[in-house]
Each structure stands twice: as structure tokens, then as C-alpha cells.
């Protein structure tokens, strides 16, 4: 057995009178290994990461021990912690754009790894590190600002900064959840190539199974089980079994859409500031089908979705709608971030039943709206949730199920869903997909935009692949299966 690098013993973290976030966990990380910490949102993963960095928010109370290279991090003073941070423990954050100061160039951002310790990187070192992390033409791109870089590239630059001092341990908190699947794999490869031990925090079990040496599954502040991917896949723990069975996506392959065309666009184009966001797109949406649209970030997926939804007028081309689409509430959206897409000051019954207040519908009393909301909650498996609760009191998975319930409550003709599952953990993702699938069976057309091609291939009836604002591949899944992935 290789050396133990980090060991938590009965580590407990709580805030005053509030809930105990981490409840007596035992965890070890060995030198050079990739340990994945997997669990639903709110299960204490990020708190553990912050405890390892000695960056718990003020007021946090800890007990037990957290030993890194023989020192107990929980008892170290701030100056000693600063020596560990960056030098012995590297940190990679979730969203690379938010992890970079928007006012500074990428060069400044990477060389800050030295600057914060009062050092100056040797000439050319920053470029060299970026090149090692797989960034072509680093010398030119380095003086650009974060918003001019792609997410995948910027995340690799962040990794180059996090590994500047060859730390023994890298803490990566959801390092790929803002990236496309293919880029996520490349970023994880860069992470592991650094030679450091990696604590990989993720809610994406599928991704973790492809990369981690060992997996620790946590829920509600406890570690349920730790082991290799093979060992866990035959675990007898019911929660673990559920988690593993949810890695797949509800498959709908082989269904043929029978419905009529409810929306069709010919030669759709959109320009922003003289630049073509999308051009020459032909799309038809049939009642009761699930149409997937995929492609790399910035390819125009969301723009196409906005045009289909009538939120913007196309710059070129024509859009034909069936008569059913002329009444308000017939096109409903589901957005990526479930918590912010519900009004944070409204009780959920109010958000949920808002589509029922459209002008052409009979007026409902508050009592009737509450009853309808309770029934809808029951249908999406949230019967135990109080309709009076606020979105902030619920998990993101619950909020997204409420968003789907809101989209379906008025029996719309089309649901336009933009990355509805990318902020969700594995189990919540499956629940949301099941709800969308159920809506399609009731005759609602679902247009599902996602960067997760694996998921769409399983779940959608047809998948359109976009690249640089154009539809690269069209047609049913079976016809395009042989086409190589273009990105």
C-alpha cells in the first residue's frame, strides 16, 4: 500500500446551532491516486474540500482530525495554512470563468500562482506550463482576457496555475460540470497527468467511473461506502445500487414519432453585432417527440432554441407554427439553473401554477391554485414537499422537478429545455428525464438542448448536432450513428 497523504478521522463540521454538515467521516487519500467524492448536492462534499484547504467559513465548528502530510490542518495557524495552500495543496474550481478575475489577463491569472507567495515565475515558465496543459499557441493567447477564452481552455489554464508548485494533492471541486462531455474527459486527463494525488469532487458518477481509482460515496454528510469502481458496482447498499442504476439514461430508442409537425423553421439565421450566431438551420418539431440539439459551447444551440420559442425574431428564414401554438402558454421553457428559474420570494405553489393564470384560461382562486400545485407535486414525486416552501429551502434536483411540473401544468404543445440536467446529480437527472419522457408520451414535443451527447443519444428520438451555428448532422439517431463525432 502506498503512502497515506491525507487522512480524515471522525471529521465533523457544523455551524453553531445550524445543521451538522459533515458527520464523522473517515477518509484517506494516498499519494498519486485519484479519489472521487461523489454525492448529491448538499451532501457536504464542498465543505470537506474547504476544510482540507483550511478555508471553512468563519463560525464553522470542527471536531475529529484532518491530517495532511503529518500535520493536523484543523489546528494550523493562518500563516502555516498559507504555506500549504498552492504549494502542497492545489485547488481547481468549478466554473473557470468565475475562477478568474475578469479584469485580468490569463497571463496574470496563471502567474498569480507565484505572485501570491511573493515570487515571480521564471521567464517563459507560464507559457511552458500552458503548453504542457495542452494549450496551443499559448504565447499569443496568454495576453487575452478570460472572456475571450473557451471554457475548456480556461479550465486547463486554471489547472496549470493550480499545479504550478507541483502540489502533492489537488482538490478539484466539480472541475468539469461547466464543460462539454468530451472536454470534461480531456480536462480530467490533464488533471491526472499532473502527477499529484487528486481529490475529485463530482455529482457525475458516469464521469467518475471513467477516471477515478477509488470512489467515496457520500450522502447527508456521511461516507456511505468507499472502494474501487468494480467493488462499488456490486455493493449491497441500496442507495449505492440506486446511484449506479441511475448512471444510465432512460432509453427511448426505437420509438418513431407519429405526431404532426407543430413547428418548422426553414433557413433560420440570427446575427448579433454583425456576427452570424446561427445560419441556414432547417428544423421541424413533431408533436410527442423528443428532439435533442447538441454541440460544443458557443455553437448556437441556445440561440436556435430562443428562435424556436419565439423569444427572438429570426434574422433570416421563416418559422411556421401550427394553430395550437398561437395561444399563450403553449410553449414552455425549462432552464439550466433550477433555483434561479423559480422566483426566490414566491412560495412554490405560486410559481408552479403561474401558467394557469394566462388570460384565456378561467380564473382560479388561490385555494384552487394551491390544490392544483399539490396535485402536480404529487405527480413529479414531490408529494411530501410543502407547497408553501420557498425555492431556497429545496435542493436543486427538487427545484428542477418543480420547473418541469410548471412547464407541463398547462399542457403545452412544446417544452423547450436548455441544459435542464447539467446542474443535477445522477439521481435527480434521471427523475427529470423521466418527467420529460412522460410529457412526450402525453403528446408534448420536447426540444432538449444539452452538451451531454451520451445522454441525448440514449434519450432523444432524434439528435441534431450543431457546430459553428450550422446543423452539422440531421436525421434520426439510427441514421447518424455511424457519423464520427465532429468535436
Amino acid at each position: 500500500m502506498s503512502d497515506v497523504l491525507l487522512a480524515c478521522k471522525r471529521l465533523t463540521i457544523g455551524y453553531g446551532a445550524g445543521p451538522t454538515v459533515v458527520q464523522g467521516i473517515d477518509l484517506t487519500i494516498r499519494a498519486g491516486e485519484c479519489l472521487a467524492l461523489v454525492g448529491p448536492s448538499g451532501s457536504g462534499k464542498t465543505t470537506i474540500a474547504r476544510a482540507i484547504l483550511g478555508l471553512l467559513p468563519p463560525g464553522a465548528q470542527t471536531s475529529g482530525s484532518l491530517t495532511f502530510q503529518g500535520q493536523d490542518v484543523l489546528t494550523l495557524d493562518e500563516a502555516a495554512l498559507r504555506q500549504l495552500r498552492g504549494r502542497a495543496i492545489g485547488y481547481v474550481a468549478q466554473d473557470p470563468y468565475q475562477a478568474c478575475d475578469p479584469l485580468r489577463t490569463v497571463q496574470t491569472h496563471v502567474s498569480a500562482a507565484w505572485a501570491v507567495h511573493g515570487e515571480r515565475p521564471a521567464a517563459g515558465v507560464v507559457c511552458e506550463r500552458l503548453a504542457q496543459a495542452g494549450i496551443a499557441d499559448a504565447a499569443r493567447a496568454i495576453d487575452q482576457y478570460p472572456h475571450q477564452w473557451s471554457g475548456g481552455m480556461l479550465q486547463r489554464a486554471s489547472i496549470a496555475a493550480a499545479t504550478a508548485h507541483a502540489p502533492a494533492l489537488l482538490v478539484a471541486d466539480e472541475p468539469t460540470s461547466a464543460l462539454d462531455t468530451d472536454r470534461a474527459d480531456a480536462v480530467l486527463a490533464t488533471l491526472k497527468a499532473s502527477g499529484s494525488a487528486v481529490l475529485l469532487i463530482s455529482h457525475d458518477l458516469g464521469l467518475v467511473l471513467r477516471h477515478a481509482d477509488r470512489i467515496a460515496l457520500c450522502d447527508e454528510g456521511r461516507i456511505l461506502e468507499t472502494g474501487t469502481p468494480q467493488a462499488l458496482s456490486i455493493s449491497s447498499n441500496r442507495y449505492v445500487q440506486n446511484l449506479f442504476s441511475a448512471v444510465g439514461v432512460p432509453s427511448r430508442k426505437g420509438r418513431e414519432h407519429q405526431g404532426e409537425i407543430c413547428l418548422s423553421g426553414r433557413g433560420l439565421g440570427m446575427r448579433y453585432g454583425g456576427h452570424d450566431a446561427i445560419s441556414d438551420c432547417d428544423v421541424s418539431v413533431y408533436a410527442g417527440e423528443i428532439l435533442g440539439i447538441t454541440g460544443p459551447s458557443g455553437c448556437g444551440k441556445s440561440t436556435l432554441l430562443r428562435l424556436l420559442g419565439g423569444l427572438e425574431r429570426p434574422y433570416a428564414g421563416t418559422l411556421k407554427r401550427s394553430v395550437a401554438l398561437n395561444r399563450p402558454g403553449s410553449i414552455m421553457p425549462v432552464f439550466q439553473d433550477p433555483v434561479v428559474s423559480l422566483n426566490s420570494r414566491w412560495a412554490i405553489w405560486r410559481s408552479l401554477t403561474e401558467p394557469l393564470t394566462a388570460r384565456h384560461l378561467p380564473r382560479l382562486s388561490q385555494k384552487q391554485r394551491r390544490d392544483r400545485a399539490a396535485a402536480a407535486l404529487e405527480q413529479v414525486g414531490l408529494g411530501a414537499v410543502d407547497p408553501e416552501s420557498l425555492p431556497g429551502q429545496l435542493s436543486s434536483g427538487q427545484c428542477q422537478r418543480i420547473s418541469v411540473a410548471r412547464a407541463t401544468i398547462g399542457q403545452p404543445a412544446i417544452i423547450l429545455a436548455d441544459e435542464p440536467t447539467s446542474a443535477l446529480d445522477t439521481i435527480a437527472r434521471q427523475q427529470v428525464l423521466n418527467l420529460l419522457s412522460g410529457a412526450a408520451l402525453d403528446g408534448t414535443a420536447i426540444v432538449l438542448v444539452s452538451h451531454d451527447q451520451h445522454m441525448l443519444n440514449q434519450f432523444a428520438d432524434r439528435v441534431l448536432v450543431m457546430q459553428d451555428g450550422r446543423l452539422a448532422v440531421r436525421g434520426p439517431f439510427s441514421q447518424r450513428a455511424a457519423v464520427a463525432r465532429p468535436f
Partner: protein
Amino acid sequence: MTPGLASAIFGRLAQAVLTALAASMLVWALLPLAPGDPVLRIFEARNILEPNDLQIANLRAEMALDQPLPNQFAHWLIRVTQGDLSVSYRTGRPVLSELLDRLPATLLLLGSALAGSIALSLLLSIIAVAWHGKWPDRAIMLYTQLGAALPTFVLALLVLQYVVVGAGVGKVLANGSASLVLLPALTIAVDRAAGWTQLLRASLLDAGAANHAMVARARGATPRYVLLRHSLPNGIVPFLTAIGISIGGLIGGAPIIEEIFTWPGIGRYLLQALSARDYPVIQGFVLISGLSYVGASLIVDLVTMLIDPRLRRPA
């Protein structure tokens, strides 16, 4: 300079010129809307109490008052750009030279007040954030609450009563010189800085809670490094915008402060002009304060463009 920055700056300059033009149109409209015949008022100011019809017609033609309104405006605008702001009804002297005589004193007062309040609010908000939640922060918050609630002239009266008369510091009758500017400037600064400190403190706290600040901490940065290198540049943009907007308020508030401290600036002169309904002078003051506002917000926008690369794309 990148092409994006150049065209963004050009666009902003063009916008400033348009704003100045629109503002001057409003300023010009003061005169046709004012009661009384401006030609008769001017003769009065020249001590010609009963001008004959020929004199009146000549002056009317000279000022283009016999022409339709758009032509009157064009004529007025050309005269203004040549530095002719007409004559004061009260003294008969050209308005421009009357204002220019008094402008240095006002610039000295408002300039030092502005510099003082910027320095004060920067200092206080950095202290408040560095000791967030501790007693220095609470003390500063108390000051900002009081300062924001209190009108400037109340503080000015208190300063005059207790510091100048009571303690004998400074003079009751100021002559507008640099040696006496400290008290009135500090009075304005202490009052102005209250609101700005609240704003800057809040944006510094927001910027400090951003993910990039957490990443910097996780790389071993000290709180001071994060505050000065990341939070300050990110948090200062709304602060600068607020300063640009309140320049107008600063100039509009000058008359009261100048009156209390008997400061011989254009603000006091405006009060005299107001009570005498001396419209050309009022017009001149409004023109100066409007153009200062346009100039200040132009400078603020250019500075924020230099700070934030994301603003450098043309709109």
C-alpha cells in the same frame, strides 16, 4: 490600443457631444420661457431707461430675437461657442467674465472636496472590509448612516458655529484662497463620502465573496492581497459611476455651502442672480454645471472602460 477599445471610446465621445447639445438646448430654452423682454432688460442694465424703437429693433436683430425659434437657438449656440453668454441684467457686464472671475474659487472648493471625499471613502471602505463585522466596520457604518441622513448644510452650520466661531479655526469671511479651503471642503467631503463609502463597502464585500477571490485564497493569497488586487478593481466600477452621477449634485449644492462659508464662488453669485431674476447668469451657471456633468461622466466611463476589458467592445 485595440480596435475594439478605439471604437468604444469614439462611440462614447460622440454620445457625450450629443448629450451636451441636448443639454444646451434645455439651457437655451430658459430665456424664451423667462418672463419679460430680454432686450428691455439689457437696456435697463446699460442704464438706458427709455430706449427708442430703432435701438430696440437693432438689438433685437443683433440677438436674432426677431427670427423663428430654431434660428434663435442656432444663433445663441454659435454665440455661446464663441464665449458670448450675453450680459448680466444686474451689472451690465458680460456673464462669461463675471463667471470666470468666480470660477477659480469654486473649482478650488469643489475640487478639493471631491478629492477629499474620494480619498475618505476609499480609506474608510477598505478599513471597513478589512475588519468586516468588527468594531471599525461598525463605527464606519454608523458614520455613513448619519452622514447620508444629514443634509450638507446642517454639518456646515455646525462647523461654522463650533469650529470657526467657537474654536477660532479659519475665518468667518473667507476670501476664496487655498489657505482657507480646508474647512468648507472637508465639510462637503465628510458629507459626500458617507453614501459613497456605503456603496464601495458593499461592492468590495460582493467582490470578496466572488469565486475568483476564493480561488486566490486557495492558492495561498493573503486577505490583503485579495482585497487590493481583486476586490478593489472589481468593486470600484459602481463607485466611479456613482461619483460621475453625483457631480451634478455637487455643483448644484455649491451655492448653499458657498453662502454659509461666504465663499466667493459662482454658487454664491448664482444665489444673487436668482433673487434678481438675472436670467443670463442663471443660464450661464446651468450651462457650466451641465457641461461639467457631461464631462465628468465621460471621464468616468473612459476610466471604467480601461479597468474592465469586457466594456471595451462597441455597443
